[in-house]
């Protein structure tokens, strides 16, 4: 109990000292007795919260009330405003249903906005968790590809490392190691690691939890643990510093012993390696001196020196680069990008788009809210008129409106924030895992503050918007309730509000239909190969290929293939690169009199069944056979794109090309394959070359493809068993179907489609509800007119049409204004559009039809009611 009242005692400090001294002990005793009186843990918790909140709530008044002055008695503006708010509160409780509806409308908007802002803040806006993070940058070098890539080693060592404008630099590289717990390799665990230069830690500036940063000279012998690794493998034992762990590098089959020198705090470095939870270990490495033939390029991060602009850094780097002896491959210009931008990358756009969509939704909620507020006010027009007559000025009237709108919007905000505790995890679950920094997304206080401000703004705008149209403030009209006098003003406001909602709903609807259209097109697209019944996997576990050289390695691959083919259900098996996954590329040059520019091609080292397995059409020539071995003449199959680049208009069969013009081992083209969409569905086919894997030397891939009929899951299981039966040291990490990989690739699009469509659904619902209530109010307002029309001979059908037409007119205006706006803003969606031209007829038609049908169903009931009115009763209304 003492512990429970500790917080209470602490918070008592909010009160003036004399008050605290006088009553503090009694209050604390009472607080404890309140807790003791409760039977259950839950109700005790509730009472604890209420007592604490009450304490916080009362504190400012106690502190700031002047001694001697009565509490509420101030007669200034504040007091009257408070009185206004009290009255507003009472009115709101009287008009229970409209109030509740308003709160719900605001809450739905705020819930969406809070979730979207939490995502935007967590992923894009929040600074990286390093001291002085705005000075951290990542450096890129223009390469031969479309996008700038990581700097080359020589550039790093001769240009970047010693730049004056950079306070520190580091090279990092993501990799994997097998952690040898004990001595056996079997069942050993593969962990993500980051190889870094020693400067990495001091550059980021985060002090370790235990131990100290690795120092220069100790590279290769030390290791830094992540908090997670420390907890899971050493149970958080502080004595871990100085212990030695053994790590196996898979490719080189090389075991290293490294001494633990530091443990980093939890969450450190997570955002530098997206798509997983961050590296488990950091391995300091030493960079080798540059050699002419080694062309590695690795990510380089740096800290900009004090009081130096990025422009100055770029200028210095490129100036130094020019002074270097030029090597054609390594001379691309250098660029500098803030690390935060580099980490967030293109995903920033996703969340800005999401936020823009939510802003639309919030605006619709605001308009709807205004409509409800005005509906409330209409019921009290005589009261307002009297107030005006008694001399209430504009500010006072605004105060009256605020007194109603602000409590409602605040209540809506509270409910909305509460709702977002459910919606945010929901959206997070759907967010593609490739998005970085998802672990920093939470409903933090800035996010909640944002929702609070948004709701206040909503309340303020609603009050301001409804002011000019608040029931006619003319005393005579207000009191006499002359309905004709108000109609013009009210229906004009209704028109503006509902049209605004329609415009925004159309905006969201259009965006949703565009991205949906794109996704459907991608699903229906023929990639040029079979995507069902295909399994793929990679042998990642320690490979003891070192012994027998290239030939032995290829022999083992053949063994694996034989084993797989023997599994029941397997139709075909092949070695080869997996679509949508990694790819190797190289430059090729054709044989001929005139040299042409080297063409960059995707390189596929495949076994003989590869093309047949994936159903890739061989247009001409022959497939690879078992006879295409290392010692037979080198051959290749090329695709249409490459053929048209190298030998436009000619027959490529029998022509020769090479990957290395200095030492041409000419490769003869023996086949022409159809173009496929290899790297992703969106990319147009690229030049590609297939080579028999046995002619590829030691850089051939270790990925396998299996085509199986029937139940893929049982084949998966058998595959695993077959591999471990063949060699217990190797296990398969993951077996994916090609369809799964495709789904993964489309995850971001699906996310966008899902979100935009649910937003447009909600906004249509809100706009429909707004239209319904406005039409219903209009019908009620014009009851007498309807009676008159009927008395003069109008038929039920005419009345029905009258109101229906009104609703459709609003929709038409909404479409006319909304579509051009939507068309203009669809640039924001560019990234997720695929062959969906913005003027696409089908999506346009869909938008128009949906909007019209929503409008029709919203107006139908009130219009029908109007048409069923009895003229006699209608004429005598009021």
């Amino acid at each position, binding site marked *: 109990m003492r512990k429970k009242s500790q917080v209470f005692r602490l918070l008592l400090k909010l009160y003036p000292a004399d008050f605290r001294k006088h009553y503090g002990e009694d209050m604390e005793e009472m607080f404890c007795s309140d807790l003791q009186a409760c039977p259950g843990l839950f109700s005790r918790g509730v009472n604890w919260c209420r007592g604490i909140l009450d304490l916080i709530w009362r504190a400012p008044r106690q502190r700031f009330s002047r001694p001697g002055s*009565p509490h509420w008695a101030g007669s200034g503006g504040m007091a009257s405003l408070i009185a206004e708010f009290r009255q507003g509160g009472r009115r709101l409780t009287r008009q229970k249903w409209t109030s509740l509806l308003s709160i719900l409308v605001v809450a739905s908007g705020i819930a969406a906005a809070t979730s979207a802002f939490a995502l935007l803040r967590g992923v894009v806006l929040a600074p990286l968790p390093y001291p002085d993070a705005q000075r951290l940058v990542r450096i890129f070098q223009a390469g031969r590809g479309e996008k700038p890539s990581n700097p080359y080693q020589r550039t790093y060592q001769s240009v970047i490392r010693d730049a004056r404008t950079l306070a520190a630099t580091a090279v990092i590289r993501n990799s994997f190691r097998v952690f040898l717990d004990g001595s056996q390799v079997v069942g050993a665990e593969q962990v993500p690691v980051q190889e870094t230069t020693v400067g990495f830690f001091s550059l980021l500036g985060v002090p370790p939890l235990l131990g100290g940063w690795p120092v220069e000279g100790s590279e290769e012998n030390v290791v830094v643990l992540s908090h997670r690794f420390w907890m899971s493998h050493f149970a958080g034992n502080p004595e871990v510093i100085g212990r030695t762990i053994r790590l196996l590098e898979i490719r080189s089959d090389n075991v290293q012993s490294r001494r633990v020198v530091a443990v980093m705090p939890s969450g450190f470095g997570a955002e530098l390696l997206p798509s997983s939870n961050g590296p488990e270990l950091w391995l300091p490495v030493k960079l080798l001196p540059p050699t002419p033939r080694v062309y590695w390029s690795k990510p380089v991060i740096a800290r900009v020196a004090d009081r130096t602009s990025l422009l100055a850094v770029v200028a210095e780097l490129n100036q130094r680069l020019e002074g270097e002896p030029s090597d054609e491959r390594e001379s691309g210009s250098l660029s500098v990008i803030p690390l935060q931008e580099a980490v967030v990358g293109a995903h920033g756009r996703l969340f800005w788009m999401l936020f823009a969509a939510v802003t639309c939704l919030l605006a619709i909620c605001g308009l709807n809210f205004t409509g409800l507020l005005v509906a409330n006010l209409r019921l009290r027009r005589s009261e307002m008129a009297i107030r005006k007559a008694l001399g209430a000025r504009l500010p006072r009237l605004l105060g009256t409106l605020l007194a109603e709108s602000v409590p409602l919007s605040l209540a809506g905000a*509270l409910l909305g924030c509460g709702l977002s505790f459910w919606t945010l995890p929901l959206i997070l679950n759907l967010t593609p895992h490739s998005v970085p920094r998802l672990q920093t997304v939470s409903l933090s206080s800035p996010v909640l503050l944002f929702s609070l401000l948004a709701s206040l703004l909503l309340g303020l705008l609603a009050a301001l918007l409804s002011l000019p149209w608040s029931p006619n403030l003319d005393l005579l009209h207000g009191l006499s309730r002359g309905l004709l006098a108000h109609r013009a003003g009210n229906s004009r406001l209704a028109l503006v509000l509902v049209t605004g909602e329609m415009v925004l709903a159309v905006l969201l609807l259009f965006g949703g239909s565009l991205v949906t259209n794109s996704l459907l097109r991608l699903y229906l697209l023929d990639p040029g190969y079979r995507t069902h019944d295909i399994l793929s996997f990679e042998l990642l576990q320690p490979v003891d290929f070192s012994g027998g050289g290239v030939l032995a390695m290829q022999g083992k691959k053949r063994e694996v293939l034989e084993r797989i083919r023997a599994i029941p259900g397997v139709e075909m098996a092949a070695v080869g690169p997996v679509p949508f996954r990694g790819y190797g590329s190289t430059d090729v040059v054709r044989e001929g009199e005139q040299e042409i520019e080297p063409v960059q091609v995707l390189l596929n080292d495949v076994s003989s069944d590869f093309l047949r397995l994936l159903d890739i059409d061989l247009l001409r020539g022959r497939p690879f056979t078992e006879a295409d071995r290392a010692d037979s003449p080198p051959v290749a199959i090329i695709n249409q794109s490459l053929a048209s680049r190298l030998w436009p208009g000619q027959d490529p069969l029998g022509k020769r090309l090479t990957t290395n013009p200095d030492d041409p081992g000419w490769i003869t083209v023996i086949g022409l394959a159809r173009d496929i969409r290899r790297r992703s569905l969106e990319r147009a086919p690229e030049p590609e070359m297939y080579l028999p894997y046995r002619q590829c030397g030691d850089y051939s891939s270790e990925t396998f493809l299996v085509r199986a009929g029937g139940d893929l899951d049982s084949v998966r299981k058998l595959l695993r068993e077959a591999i471990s039966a063949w060699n217990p040291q190797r296990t398969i990490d993951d077996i994916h179907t090609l369809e799964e990989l495709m789904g993964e690739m489309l995850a971001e699009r699906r996310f966008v489609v899902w979100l935009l469509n649910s937003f447009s659904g909600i906004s249509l619902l809100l706009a429909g509800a707004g239209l319904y209530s406005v039409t219903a109010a209009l019908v009620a307002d014009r009851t007498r007119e309807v009676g008159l029309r009927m008395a003069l001979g109008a038929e039920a059908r005419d009345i029905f049409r009258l109101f229906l037409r009104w609703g459709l007119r609003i929709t038409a205006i909404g479409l006319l204004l909304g579509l051009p706006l939507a068309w203009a803003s669809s640039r924001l969606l560019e990234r997720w559009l695929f062959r969906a031209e913005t003027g696409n007829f089908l999506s346009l038609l869909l938008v128009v039809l949906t909007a019209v049908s929503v409008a029709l169903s919203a107006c139908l009931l009130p219009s029908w009611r109007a048409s069923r009115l009895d003229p006699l009763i209608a004429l005598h209304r009021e």
Partner: protein
Amino acid sequence: MTDNSREERLSLVILINIIFDMTIRAESPDFFILLALLDHPRHGLSVQREVLDLTDGQLHLWPATLYTSLARMARRGWIEELGPQDHPSGESQRRRYFRLSPRGRRVLEERTVSLGKVYTVAVSRLEANPQENG
């Protein structure tokens, strides 16, 4: 859902409750406190229990609400705090005791009278306007 966020959610729900209490149903508890002190001097805890009793469990005065009200009423001279020598015998000397002052009694009387008036008016209006159908 982690424990942490469940706790946050809970406190949010409670916050909503409190704010409704404060803004919309903000009736001052003064009347009931005065009423509770009418028979004999009491200390805070006893005032709290008495008010709970008086209002049939409807009005629970949380410590800060009660003591800020007591302090305010003492400042206005509606109630007085007893000196240690006046504490009822056998009771704790440490606790603060309050009693109704003559001025407080007048306030209570005035409020009761006006409440009575409101009550009478309400009853007569209700009788004059029997329930309509439709």
